[in-house]
């Protein structure tokens, strides 16, 4: 008898235990022997493991026999857990019929819990609340149940109590998946329609497309078509995900699995795209597809210009596995040849940076992240600028506009003052408060995206002692008085340190940048002057004083090797710095210049 299929996802606020629960389900269904078990099986990138967040979604098919003896195949589709990746989340959810909504028994409902719930509701999914971490002494199950009723308007009686860490309640979760999540609709005879919810690159097989079949079926040898761009490919292999890939004869309606079809790079596929058969295409694609657009931009330069080719190579290789990254050639007077890159958000940027350095061994400098501005020029033309290098001639600017977001910040009431202060500092306006539960406030406020892309989330966490959660939607472009702030080091303009700022904040930004650079640039043998300027006017300055003494008294037979090794180490460190004239600027300075005071 064919096993019954259930497709589901786990959604949760960060740190509420999504990955641990996924691990426990995998373990309980016997997919992996206990002793071979590595924690958080689904997150297979080092960075994910270290940061405890899921970056790329993945899927796994779990065999399960329920208490009535019925056979199931449970497809668990993992979703990324960060606002930067909300589109990927939505495609993963579109591939499911239900979700487990995990809520921490001591933290209760958080901003992302609500956001995730709404996302699941948009897709008409069955929602099973799971109260996790009930083993904690601080667990308050009754009040979490009340929040489920009041904040989420869900039936708290259906909530399952579990501790993924201790492994209690896991059976109940699996039973609920089989009972409460509806089976996929059964249109085996329709046109093939497979929703792409993920893609990753395998050096031997090319792109592995993860998909959910909504109607029809697909097998090796079929010629498939990607409906967004009409590209066609011959299917080499289809199968399902166990801990690795497991080939199958075909993938049928309702199933979740992979297709390998000689697609060279991940960028050739689009998440949310519909796969159909070339010979008998579906008339319309599945709904919800959209192009992912970068919102944060930064330039990447090799520390030494000789490494430009190696960086090009690494970026291209990296891109194989990350369709969301976009880049194009860029050059700076200070930093030479490099690339202008677009990212989904700051976390995405950091991930790219870390992986380029760690996996590809590149020494890189990333410039201050920026958003895309729009300028209406005197001649009526509108230009988009995502790089301060291309800031237009100020005399020709008729109107300057920058992107705005609407925040959803969920905090305990006592932090309202500090959070409002932070938001207003960051040019927040039009604030509205919602009171989801007694004692908690949701702050909705319109803010320029530029004000949140750097360290807003860090600052929010600091001022709320970790209790604040943050989510946002892009709103629109609004007119503002903008200016380009330049930084001069020993009189030389360092174009890579320029930033576009609101004119009212120009002076404080300049002072801050000069102060940061003073902290970041090590002392040299000579004095270093750092200046902030708008147009030709110097509006801030700082000085790195030279060091006068750096010498050890003794140097005899036993000291020479140690001395040389130290010099070699320092030389290496200096290689990772960028020479601007005769000043060595460390990599960190290029981003630190943007950091605000953490008072």
């Amino acid at each position, binding site marked *: 008898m064919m096993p019954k299929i259930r497709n589901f996802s786990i959604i949760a606020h960060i740190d509420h235990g999504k990955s641990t629960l996924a691990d426990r389900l995998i373990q309980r269904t016997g997919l992996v022997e206990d002793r071979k078990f590595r924690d958080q099986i689904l997150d297979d990138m080092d960075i994910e493991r270290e940061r405890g967040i899921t970056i790329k979604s993945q899927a796994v098919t779990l065999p399960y026999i329920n208490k009535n003896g019925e056979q199931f195949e449970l497809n668990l589709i993992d979703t990324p857990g960060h606002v930067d990746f909300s589109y990927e989340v939505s495609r993963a959810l579109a591939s499911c019929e239900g979700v487990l909504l995990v809520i921490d028994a001591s933290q209760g409902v958080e901003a992302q819990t609500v956001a995730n719930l709404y996302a699941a509701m948009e897709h008409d999914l069955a929602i099973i609340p799971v109260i996790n971490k009930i083993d904690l002494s601080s667990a308050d199950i009754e009040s979490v149940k009340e929040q489920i009723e009041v904040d989420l308007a869900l039936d708290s009686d259906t909530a399952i109590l579990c501790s993924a860490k201790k492994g209690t309640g896991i059976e109940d979760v699996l039973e609920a998946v089989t009972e409460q999540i509806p089976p996929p609709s059964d249109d085996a005879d329709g046109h093939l329609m497979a929703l792409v919810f993920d893609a990753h690159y395998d050096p031997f097989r090319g792109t592995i497309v993860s998909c959910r079949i909504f109607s029809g079926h697909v097998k090796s040898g079929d010629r498939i078509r990607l409906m967004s761009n009409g590209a066609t490919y011959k299917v080499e292999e289809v199968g399902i995900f166990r801990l690795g890939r497991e080939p199958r004869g075909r993938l049928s309606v309702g199933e979740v699995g992979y297709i390998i079809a000689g697609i060279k790079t991940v960028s050739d596929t689009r998440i949310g795209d519909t796969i159909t058969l070339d010979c008998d295409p579906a008339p319309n694609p599945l709904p919800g597809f959209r192009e992912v657009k970068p919102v944060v931009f930064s330039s990447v330069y090799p520390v030494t210009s000789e490494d430009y080719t190696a960086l090009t190579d690494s970026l291209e290789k990296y891109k194989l596995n990350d369709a969301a990254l976009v880049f194009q050639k860029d050059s700076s007077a200070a930093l030479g040849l490099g690339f202008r890159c677009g990212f989904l958000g700051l976390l995405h940027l950091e991930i790219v940076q870390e992986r380029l350095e760690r996996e590809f061994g590149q020494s890189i400098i990333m410039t201050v992240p920026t958003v895309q501005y729009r300028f209406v020029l005197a001649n009526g033309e509108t230009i988009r600028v995502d790089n301060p290098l291309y800031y237009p001639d100020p005399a020709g600017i008729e109107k300057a506009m920058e992107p705005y977001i609407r925040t959803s910040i969920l905090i305990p009431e006592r932090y309202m003052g500090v959070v409002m202060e932070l938001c207003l500092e960051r040019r927040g306006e039009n604030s509205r408060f919602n009171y989801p539960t007694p004692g908690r406030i949701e702050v909705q406020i319109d803010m320029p995206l530029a004000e949140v892309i750097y360290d807003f989330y860090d600052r929010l966490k600091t001022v709320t002692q970790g209790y604040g959660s943050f989510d946002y939607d892009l709103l629109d472009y609004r007119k503002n008085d903008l200016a380009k702030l330049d930084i001069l080091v020993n009189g030389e303009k360092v174009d890579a340190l320029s930033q576009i700022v609101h004119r009212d904040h120009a002076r404080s930004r300049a002072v801050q940048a000069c102060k940061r650079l003073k902290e970041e640039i090590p002392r040299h043998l000579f004095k270093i002057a750092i200046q902030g300027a708008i147009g030709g006017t110097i509006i801030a300055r700082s000085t790195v004083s030279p060091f006068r003494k750096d*010498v050890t008294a003794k*140097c005899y037979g036993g000291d020479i090797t140690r001395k040389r090794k130290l010099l070699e180490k320092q030389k290496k460190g200096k290689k990772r710095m960028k020479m601007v004239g*005769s000043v060595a600027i460390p990599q960190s300075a290029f981003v630190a210049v943007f950091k605000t005071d953490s008072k």
Partner: protein
Amino acid sequence: MKLPGLYVHIPFCRSKCPYCGFYSLASTSLVSRWLDAFKKEVISYRGRFRCFDSLYLGGGTPTFLEVKTLKAVVDCLFSNFDFAPDTETTIEANPADLTPEKIKRIRGMGFNRINVGVQSFDDEALLFLGRRHTAGEAELVLKRLRSCGFDNIGIDLIYGFEGQSLKGWIETLKKALVFRPEHLSCYQLTFEKGTPFSKMKERGMIMPLGEEKECDFFTSTSKFLEVNGYDHYEISNFARKKAFYSRHNQKYWCHTPYLGLGPSAHSFHNSTRWWNVRSIRKYCEALENREAPVEGREGLTNEQMILESVALGLRTKKGFGLKQIGHDPKMMEMLFRLKKSGHIRIDKDSVVPTEKGYLVADCLPLYVIV
């Protein structure tokens, strides 16, 4: 090719001084075992180095050894190695050990140079430095050394510690000059890793002088001694004329070969450096098992040799030769920048540090070698 130098590390002291990072034990229980092992080490190198023209007994405190032990060390060296006729033979001495009798016996062993660890002519400073002699005792010893015929005397001094005034330090220098020493080593106090002083510094019990005062002390020392006829020929070393530069120590700074014997001693030959274990026990065990007591060894690449030449050269008045770094235009550019900022002079084909350069000698090489 210059002749190699021979260094012997005597790893014993009566007591450990709180600033000193050199390896030694404050106990005599292992002396005879060490001496046997030492003889084995000497024999193991027989025939492997040609004639030496410098011998340096350092430590530790060589003069802490009994005369008969010292004699055995020297005899062993002279009977197993060749020395040039004009060899510079130096022994490091603690004034507290130098009885009139011991001075005579040391002189009799053939030492033609003595380096006395006076450290200060201020009794309070001597107490702080944990020395076991007074200023008066040191003065007496220096007088005796002269009358016993030592015509090449070096005095070691330490300066720049908390509580010492510049005036007080110059007083000490003046007292040293009374003896017209041929050589003076003036070490600015360094907090060597693992020493009691460095631990005290970590706990905030001693404070370093701070950059500004350290610079003042350094330049004042140099000026004062130059006015009094001394050549500031290395960061911490001064000599009355070129003939009195320490021949042995210069070998360290010029990549001249040297052989170091005894625990923790370093050797250099044919672009290779190796160093002995930093433990008397391990040293003895190795030699007793007919093994070399060598802990580590490194072959220097051409690039490393250049880096060392530049780093070592920039610590001495001799500097380094331009041809040593080749004719890299980028390096030349850097050199002229350093010349302009007053850190170096370029004399014909060599690069020589100025006083200002001496003060930053540890990082200067980073500006030369790019």
